[in-house]
């Protein structure tokens, strides 16, 4: 799968980046391509481009707060999950998504 996503947490200091790292690691290990945008205290990093969105099979939003720029994903398959789920079991989450996409 071509996975893109956004992570954001309340303080924007730690969980945002741990979640990104967990998602990227799990996705790569499972043979997917992945790009995750972080919306944290530093600001937005690795911002998803229009091309990123066009190519994506799935958009994962892992956040405890409102994320910015959701309108970019209009028309895409978007799944919103709590931050905790991504940190706790990223692979299980990706497996579930994969199964769902296969229908």
């Amino acid at each position, binding site marked *: 799968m071509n996975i893109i996503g956004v992570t954001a947490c*309340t*303080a924007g*200091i*730690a*969980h*945002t*980046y*741990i*979640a*990104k*790292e*967990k998602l*990227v*690691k799990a996705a790569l290990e499972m043979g997917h391509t992945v790009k*995750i945008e*972080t919306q*944290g*205290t*530093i*600001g937005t*990093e690795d911002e998803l481009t229009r091309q990123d969105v066009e190519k994506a099979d799935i958009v994962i939003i892992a956040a*405890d707060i409102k994320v910015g720029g959701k309108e970019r994903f209009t028309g895409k398959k978007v799944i919103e999950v709590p931050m*905790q789920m991504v*940190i*706790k079991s990223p692979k299980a989450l990706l497996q579930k998504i994969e199964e769902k996409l296969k229908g």
Partner: protein
Amino acid sequence: MDFVEVLRPAIVDLQMEANHKQEVITKLAELLFADGAILSREEYINDVNEREQEGPTGIGNFVAIPHGKSDSVVKISVAMAKLQSPIPWETLDGNPVKIVFLFAVPKQNSSNEHLKLLSQLAAVLAHDDSIQLLLEVQNPEDIFEVFKSQKTSV
């Protein structure tokens, strides 16, 4: 720019004796205060505890990352404790906690470079093998090695 700029040996305690979460937070805040990273222990601890109310900071794997954005912080820092014996904490996997990283970030005018360093440090904690190494380290220098050696995407 190096992790040692935010995770300084003076704010690392690899043999902390503590029985509960508040004791760990208080002891680490003491270290931050003595190191000149925060101006007020009380204010900082209050801000940390406010964040604790919002959701679990135990990320599983025996690691907790309490953090406070606080006006009392004057130097972006990460204090670290390894505990002599595991203590209860609100964690994602229900396990107790053996390592605590307490993040101290000013509410305003933060240096982006140091914030970036914090985000990279957090990303290292996403790797099980890094945690395994951190659980084994005996001196502060080895901690920096663990953080330096792990390649992250952040």
